[in-house]
């Protein structure tokens, strides 16, 4: 028994050290990344992947991840804005869900109040119908919506999330009133998948990766992806290529606190940019099945502003924001 315990501890310790390789410390940055979600979720794995890459490339001497879950990330964001102001060693991971949550929760803080460093990844959403559905193309779907918006039952992730927003955008471009959309929210792509396969819904929206298996096996028919360009290995064509001017990506980015300026900000930008361009980061993105959606700080800043306006407009039109 004791022998077993010792072996277990040794192995665990070995695995632990393997995870923190003694990288050549080219940088003396000691960073803390806040993931405004619980351990195991999307933002948490983004934060932990960035941690791994920054330490492996030596862009930071040490990186720690802190989880502050709650209210779609707004709890973590509020804490970050409040307590990390001006601190050049604090970072935050966030994404489009946080933009929506800040608006629909009437949160006093939003992402325009923090300093964007870089947009990192952007996972495409996919629009699907069941295998036996008479709907064969995105145009068929638009026609169905136009005919009767109420009986066109959508399923997808939580109310006001990216899935819901995309469904509303498509409804709108079909010429129907987006506030009349019949969107049945599930806790995530998994539960919504069961509703799709069970034939209870007309169409569904989720992250492409979540439904990839069913799409490849033919249980679901993918009509379109929301990414602006075609993606290698993905058969479904972008909405933009099919005549709908809709682009919506489940993006994630990294931010510095408000009030970080000058040399401090430049150092952080450089560290993040170098990490994102490294082979290590590319390997992680590939292993996790993410899609690269990199944009540097300035471009990302403009993107946040336009994204916030766009999400606010669509949430207002579906009655989730005033």
């Amino acid at each position: 028994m004791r022998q077993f315990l010792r072996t277990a501890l040794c192995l665990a310790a070995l695995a632990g050290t393997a995870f923190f390789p003694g990288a050549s410390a080219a940088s003396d940055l000691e960073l803390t990344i806040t993931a405004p979600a619980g351990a195991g979720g999307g933002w948490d794995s983004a934060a932990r992947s960035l941690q791994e890459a920054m330490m492996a490339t030596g862009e930071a001497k040490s990186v720690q991840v802190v989880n502050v879950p709650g209210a779609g990330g707004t709890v973590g964001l509020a804490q970050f804005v409040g307590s990390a102001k001006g601190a050049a060693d604090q970072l935050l991971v966030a994404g489009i869900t946080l933009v929506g949550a800040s608006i629909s929760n009437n949160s006093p803080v939003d992402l325009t109040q923090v300093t964007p460093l870089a947009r990192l990844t952007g996972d495409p959403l996919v629009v699907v119908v069941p295998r036996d559905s008479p709907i064969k193309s995105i145009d068929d779907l638009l026609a169905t919506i136009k005919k009767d918006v109420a009986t066109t039952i959508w399923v997808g992730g939580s109310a006001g999330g990216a899935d819901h927003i995309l469904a509303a955008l498509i409804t709108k471009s079909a010429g129907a009133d987006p506030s009349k959309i019949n969107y049945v929210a599930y806790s995530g792509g998994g539960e919504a998948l069961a509703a799709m396969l069970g034939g209870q819904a007309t169409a569904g929206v989720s992250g492409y990766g979540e439904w990839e298996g069913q799409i490849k096996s033919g249980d679901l028919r993918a009509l379109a992806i929301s990414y602006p360009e075609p993606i290698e290995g993905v058969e479904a064509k972008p909405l933009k290529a099919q005549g709908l001017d809709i682009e919506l990506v489940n993006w994630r980015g990294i931010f510095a606190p408000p009030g970080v300026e000058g040399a401090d900000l430049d150092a952080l930008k450089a560290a993040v940019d170098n990490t994102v361009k490294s082979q290590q980061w590319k390997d992680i993105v590939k292993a996790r099945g993410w899609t690269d959606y990199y944009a540097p700080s300035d471009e990302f800043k403009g993107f946040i502003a336009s994204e916030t306006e766009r999400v606010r407009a669509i949430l207002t039109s579906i009655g989730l924001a005033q």
Partner: protein
Amino acid sequence: MIERSLKPANRPAVVVAMVLFSVAAVTYWDASRMTARATYGMDANAAAYFICLFLAVLGIGHLFAAFQALPIEAEDADWKAIGWIAVALSGLIGSIWLGAGFTLGSALLFAFTARAFGRKALIVDLVIGIVMGLVVFLLFNKLLSLALPQGPFERLF
């Protein structure tokens, strides 16, 4: 209705009834302020109204029980011990709140809980608590890389 005096032992039932009525009132107030409307089917406040009604019925049930049924008996309690555990929990919450760290919080929680159960060796228990908290902290932060709240003490490691 015939005036019946309330036995002291029946007071808990009346108190529970009052608590139920006030919770029902708060729930009603909250439900009446909900603005989000479901486009099809039922609104989010349907369940709230239902539970509100359920609570009110249970409140009436408790009022009846207070006058009729057997009293709910409770033994004497050692309020001092309860007080010590309250101190213990406040110690933990306080040290997280003030940023004094997880280890100190656990040590206070452990030592004052032990005090509640009649131990007098507070210093020894504090030391045990600190060691225990620190082991847990190191296990989580170093091995599992999950950051527990840090205070000045934890930053030494």
